[in-house]
């Protein structure tokens, strides 16, 4: 080299300042990216919890009701069927008017009645059906307040807004304040959210129907996808010779794992509903579609688990004179099981969060009843979230966030199980 060492050193030194700066900049970009990612997590969870937390409490109002025979059974000839459709709402109104005797006129009465959910009348009807002796008696009932009252108590309706733009009128505000003051209107744990099905009225809407639908759908998915996926993985890993055929299967599986989920929905609609005539909105079909969707995930995870079992185990079994099937069922499969189960749980977690393909097969219908079987119309949690997110009522926003929190809780439990399973049982060879 014709350049002197000193000259080289000088040039290197000259470059140093710029390069240190570049280094710092690069490192800062990286740190910023990480922090940005973390802040997204915080923002997402923060906004969900801030919006959804209040849904676990609900406004209840205590009213004194009278099962007035003059309203329910004016002629004294009502059968049980007649009683079921009698005007309980009138009794609720009367009860409220007794509480605020100075309310006059239809409009004011209507405003007053709007403080209480229309489920109050249903509660009365149910209690009378339970015990007909209540006819003519008075009792104190704790019933749901309407969604607007609920939102006001939670501070989501701004009192300072001019009356015309506010969902609650000045008069209603006064009544609400009076009720709160004497302790008959307050927030309490929202049991209905966890025990009821969907409803058009936000204060009556719960996730239980969707949770049950989810359980049926996932049970169906698990029952089909686990055995099939494990069988496929065993075949590909232990029995198949490498040839074009198995290559084709492998490419197919890898590709299916990346096909948009909505395409599986199209398949379900075209094949299960239209060709086989299966019922719409049913967990049965939902389970079938999600099976196809999760199969690739579980197969890939199971193959990895089987591959991790060292060949020496196989040789030992074969050396003892075990057949190939015996080698797999007695040795390889039990050793790979923790990994397979972990993969299965992760696959099921993915299925739990899927929405799009279920929209295609009609699980998007408005369903009030809790499903009782695989062929009953049902919905699932993510779809319930989608439906609620679309509802215009203010109170549905917090219900949606709360439902998301429930869904995330399920996911956390499943993933935690997977992690524990992996740490506990997975062997490193």
């Amino acid at each position, binding site marked *: *080299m*014709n*350049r002197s*060492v000193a000259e*080289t*050193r000088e*040039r*290197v*030194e*000259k*470059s*140093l300042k710029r*390069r*240190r700066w570049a280094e710092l900049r690069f490192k800062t970009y990286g740190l910023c990216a990480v922090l940005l990612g973390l802040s997204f997590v915080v923002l997402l969870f923060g906004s969900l919890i801030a919006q959804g937390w209040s849904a676990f409490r609900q406004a209840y109002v205590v009213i004194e009701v009278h099962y007035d025979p003059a309203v329910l059974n004016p002629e004294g000839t009502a059968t049980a069927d007649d009683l079921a459709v009698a005007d309980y709402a009138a009794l609720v109104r009367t009860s409220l008017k007794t509480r605020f005797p100075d309310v006059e006129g239809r409009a004011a009465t209507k405003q007053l009645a709007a403080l209480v959910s229309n489920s109050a009348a249903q509660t009365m009807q149910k209690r009378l059906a339970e015990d007909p002796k209540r006819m003519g008696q008075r009792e104190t009932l704790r019933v749901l307040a309407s969604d607007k009252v609920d939102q006001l108590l939670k501070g989501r309706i701004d009192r300072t807004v001019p009356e015309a733009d506010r969902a609650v009128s000045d008069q209603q505000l006064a009544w609400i304040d009076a009720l709160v003051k004497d302790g008959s209107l307050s927030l309490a744990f929202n049991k209905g959210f966890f025990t009821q099905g969907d409803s058009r009225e936000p204060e009556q809407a719960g996730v239980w129907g969707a949770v049950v639908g989810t359980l049926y759908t996932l049970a169906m998915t698990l029952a089909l996808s686990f055995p099939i996926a494990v069988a496929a993985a065993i075949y590909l890993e232990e029995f198949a010779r490498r040839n074009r055929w198995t290559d084709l299967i492998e490419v197919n599986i890898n590709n299916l794992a990346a096909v948009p989920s909505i395409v599986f929905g199209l398949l379900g609609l075209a094949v299960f509903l239209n060709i086989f005539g299966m019922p719409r909105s049913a967990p049965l079909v939902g389970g079938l579609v999600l099976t196809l969707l999760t199969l690739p995930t579980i197969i890939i995870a199971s193959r990895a688990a089987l591959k991790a079992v060292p060949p020496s185990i196989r040789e030992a079994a074969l050396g003892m004179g075990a057949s190939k099937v015996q080698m797999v069922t007695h040795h390889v499969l039990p050793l790979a099981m923790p990994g397979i189960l972990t993969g299965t749980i992760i696959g099921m977690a993915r299925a739990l969060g899927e929405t799009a393909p279920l929209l295609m097969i009609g699980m998007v219908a408005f369903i009030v009843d809790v499903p009782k079987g695989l062929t009953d119309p049902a919905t699932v949690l993510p779809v319930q979230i989608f439906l609620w997110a679309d509802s215009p009522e203010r109170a549905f926003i917090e219900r949606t966030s709360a439902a998301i929190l429930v869904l995330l809780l399920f996911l956390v439990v499943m993933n935690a199980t997977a992690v524990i399973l992996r740490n506990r049982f997975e062997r490193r060879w």
Partner: protein
Amino acid sequence: MSSATAPNEPAVAGLPVPVNCKTVGRVTVDNALLSARGVNVFYSGKQAIQEVSIDISRNEVLAMIGPSGCGKSTFLRCLNRMNDTIEGARVTGSIVLDGQDIYDKRQDVVQLRARVGMVFQKPNPFPKSIYENVAYGPRIHGLAADRVELDEIVHTSLQRAGLWDEVKDRLNNPGTSLSGGQQQRLCIARTIAVNPEVILMDEPCSALDPIATARIEDLIDELRASYAIAIVTHSMQQAARVSQRTAYFHLGDLIEVGETDRIFTNPRHKLTEDYITGRFG
């Protein structure tokens, strides 16, 4: 270890050797370029090197030999702070390059490595063209003002690495397309393109066939004219062929240092003798 001669030697350009140095033979040289004094290396708390002191001088090849796991590679990697890249590695003692401690807080590791280059056990060309492999160092250090100068550096570096004639028609082929021996010479060209003062070589021929090895050994001998070279090798023949001085390591200790001829003909320490005569290793 009665012959504790080292501390008594006059150190002309070098530093005083710690009194607890147990190495047999003279560890210092007259015009030392790089001097290690009392170097210890710990990996995650476990000690890999104990109290090593040695000088490396200009225009000389120092061979480090010893059984595997003796710490010779570890010591070599200390000399340009490659151990920094290993998590949990800690180095104590001092290593001085031209009067400056390379483990000093103010020492820029980038600058250091531009002065102390390294060639690795397995050839590791970058996934770039042959030209770019050699031009990479000058580029990042800003050694070439323009393309002409860069071409010149690439040309001379490849020529001095003895690779120019083989690759001059395919400078744009990927570096990985070369044979193993050519790749290693490419790595050497890459190193000398930065115009370093010291070149460290970590078993540079262990992945090569005998013919390629011979070429690299010739090259090392030529490079000695311009650089200080320290080479780790597990082959005693190689040490004897290429080096002027030899250091024998054993279990993290520097046992003996001396003129290569003397070490191989007349080892003073029992362990050195056992190794050289093939009793273990």
